[in-house]
């Protein structure tokens, strides 16, 4: 052991010699790239949240000056008052940033990179240089997206869905280069995702440690594996559609313009053919994380491990044939609507199975209410609401009424913004491995309870507004006689949303303090089973002191074979023991 440790230490020393730039900036180490994605995502999270706050101000107190924003030049704001054009830009960029530059970089980019090699027991990704390129191409896409705020005409304002024809001609929105940069940025980001996904798939297929069969892989690795396959297949569809949109805007083609023989609905079909798998690209890793923390802190094997893996595979397959449920009232043939309703109802089943299996995991456990566990339960709770509200819009006749209302906004925030709970669960859970220190639990719990309360107070009332018919993407609710009486809910939601943002302060302090404070985590602070916990915290270049060998599944908690309540995947039990046969 000590020899191996010395070798590892030498490795680490060697690593340090490659200098600042290769270590922190153009690193090919999957862990550093994972951290880079994390910082990119967290910075963008605060930008995306800030845009939402401006939006919420306008909705609660329409056309009044936003405090402290008087310095913003016209025509973006008029002495702090947000004009309609800017409002459209705010929700467009809020969604674009949150989806493409927060949830994807953190859940897929950061945790995919950081966890895959560590949890399957290998030294790095299959293609380290491609991995570095993936981050930097993504960072360029981020710079292009941010740059779009500063061009004349402002950033994109046609919604994150960029429906043609609104998005296809500058005269319809008044946005010129802002929308072009939006197209180019996401086009570039497509290549980043492609490089990342190829890497993830290759690594998982080829580089698993001895004994790490597919059905011994942790569910978070299953989720990232399936996510990578979806990314590989879905992103090129968006990339192609974006190219067509860019051509329509800049080269005068008419893919989506009827006056030139094109069809606006073609954009919607392409966009949602990507867009629905995209939803699962975002949510599958969150499901994986939830499975990890629920099992670890219930000190119990995941209930129905194989059902969990198979239901994720089922979700991935079905995600390709449900896109039309975004288009029930788009003018698509109504018979297609019926078919898409059926497939949508079917995709609810694997989601239900996952929920029940999580509850089954809690049943009979010995539950430790750590911060990551609380956030894991928080994700479960939000996902149940988001999943159930989805049934309303799956039913085509009901969707006629609630489509394009705040009911939809409530639904997808419970699903996609609900991912924030899994995201925080993952940050608190793996922070000790990433940075060598367990985050402060008291502040973590305060962070959880405030976030959970204000998340629900901000998003749940949106269901009421939607049922009242309150359309989404409107600038001033007081312009409508049937919506104006519900205005007090808009004020309530806005105040809750402000408090939700303020609730992140404990996290910020905890996180920054954790980065610089003494490293005290030890290898396995949570007494967990998966392989990353047998590496040092933080793991050196090359990850493992000894290459791990896997003897059992990832969730052998409270196994009768050992006296302690956990049994790591790589611990060899005495010969004659049956431990090797764990699933």
């Amino acid at each position, binding site marked *: 052991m000590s020899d191996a440790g010395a070798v590892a230490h030498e490795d680490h020393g060697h690593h340090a010699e490659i200098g600042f730039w290769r270590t922190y900036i153009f690193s090919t180490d999957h862990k550093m790239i994972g951290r880079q994605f994390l910082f990119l995502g967290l910075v963008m999270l605060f930008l995306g949240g800030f845009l939402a706050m401006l939006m919420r101000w306008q909705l609660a107190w329409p056309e009044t000056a936003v405090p402290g924003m008087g310095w913003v030049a016209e025509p973006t704001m008029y002495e702090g008052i947000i*004009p309609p054009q800017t409002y*459209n830009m705010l929700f467009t960029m809020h969604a674009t940033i949150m989806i493409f530059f927060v949830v994807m970089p953190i859940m897929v980019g950061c945790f995919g990179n950081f966890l895959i090699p560590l949890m399957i027991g290998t030294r790095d990704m299959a293609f380290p240089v491609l991995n570095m390129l993936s981050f930097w191409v993504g960072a360029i896409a981020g710079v292009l997206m941010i740059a779009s705020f500063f061009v004349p005409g402002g950033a994109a304002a046609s919604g994150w869905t960029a*429906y043609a*024809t*609104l998005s296809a001609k500058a005269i319809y*929105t008044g946005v010129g280069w802002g929308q072009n940069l939006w197209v180019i940025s996401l086009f570039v980001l497509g290549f980043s995702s492609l490089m990342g996904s190829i890497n993830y798939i290759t690594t998982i297929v080829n580089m698993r440690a001895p004994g790490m069969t597919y059905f011994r892989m942790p569910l978070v690795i299953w989720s990232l594996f399936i996510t990578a396959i979806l990314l590989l297949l879905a992103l090129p569809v968006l990339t192609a559609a974006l190219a067509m949109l860019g051509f329509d805007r800049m080269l005068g083609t008419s893919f989506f313009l*009827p006056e030139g023989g094109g*069809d606006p*609905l073609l954009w919607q079909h392409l966009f949602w053919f990507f867009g629905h798998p995209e939803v699962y690209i975002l949510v599958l890793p969150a499901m994986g994380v939830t499975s990890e923390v629920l099992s670890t802190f219930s*000190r*119990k094997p995941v*209930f*129905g*491990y194989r059902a969990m893996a198979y239901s994720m595979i089922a979700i991935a397959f079905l995600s390709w044939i449900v896109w039309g449920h975004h288009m029930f*009232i788009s*003018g698509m043939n*109504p*018979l297609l609507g*019926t078919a898409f*309703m*059926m497939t949508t*109802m079917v995709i609810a*089943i694997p989601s*239900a*199975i996952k929920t*029940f*299996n999580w*509850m*089954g995991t*809690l049943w*009979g*456990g*010995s*539950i*430790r209410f750590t911060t990551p566990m609380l956030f894991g339960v928080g994700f479960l*709770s939000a996902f*149940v609401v988001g999943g*159930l509200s989805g*049934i*309303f819009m799956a*039913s*085509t*006749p*009901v969707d*006629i*009424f609630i*489509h*394009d*209302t705040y009911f939809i906004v409530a639904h997808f925030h419970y699903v996609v913004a609900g991912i924030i709970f899994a995201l925080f669960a993952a940050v608190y859970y793996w922070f000790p491995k990433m940075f060598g220190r367990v985050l402060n639990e008291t502040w973590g719990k305060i962070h959880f309870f405030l976030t959970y309360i204000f998340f629900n107070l901000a998003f749940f009332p949106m*269901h*009421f507004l939607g*049922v*009242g018919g309150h*359309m989404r993407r*409107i*600038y001033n609710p007081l312009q*409508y*006689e049937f919506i104006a009486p*519900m205005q007090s809910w808009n004020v309530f939601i806005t105040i809750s949303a402000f408090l939700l943002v303020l609730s992140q302060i404990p996290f910020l302090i905890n996180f920054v303090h954790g980065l610089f404070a003494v490293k005290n985590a030890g290898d396995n602070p949570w007494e967990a089973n998966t392989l990353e916990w047998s590496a040092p915290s933080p793991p050196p270049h090359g990850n493992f002191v000894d290459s791990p060998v896997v003897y059992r599944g990832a969730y052998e908690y409270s196994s009768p074979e050992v006296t302690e*309540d956990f049994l790591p995947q790589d611990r060899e039990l005495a010969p004659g023991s049956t431990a090797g046969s764990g699933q």
Partner: protein
Amino acid sequence: MMQWLPENVSTFGGEIDSLFYFIYYLTGTVLVLVTVITIIFLILYRHRAGRRAVYCHGNTTIEITWTVIPTIILLILSFVSASTWAKIKVNAPPSDFEVKVTGKQFNWEIVYPGPDKKFGTPDDLKVDNDMHVPVNKVIRIRLSSQDVIHSFFLPNLRVKQDAIPGREILVWFEAIKTGKYELPCAELCGFGHSGMVGWLYVDTPEDYAKWVQQVRG
């Protein structure tokens, strides 16, 4: 949450509302059950010294049960929804009352064919945003758009249909109560999207005839 649904004044709106309530009670029950059971588990199975978690990898019978039950419920819901959907969207009833509605940034242009019942003739009646229709009559709308996608939304009639440039889409409804109902655009259509709103006036046949005369001057 039920009192938030706006008053329904169309023939098919009641069916949509019944489906809504059905799903509301169904999902409401599931939400309460799942939440309560989760909370009970969290309290009952909290860590206590000396108690070890149950070593259990699953239970096939239970897993099959909780797969089959939701499947049956969702299939039933699909079939019920499909028949209402077909009634509203597929099998539009015939009518001799046709109106052309065209969305344009940021107005609804409404064209009546006039006494000859043909569009594009000099006796057409053209108004912006204010749409009058007689009560208890099937109204067929030929919906289109001049520029970007708009969405023809009548909350009180449970009607919503996107208006697509380059296509004409058939929308129909039959109002069962006279009154004045808001007609907002429900699809983002540019900086003037918010406030793009018309009015539907459901008149008695006499009032409707009076209005036609008045507009024709």
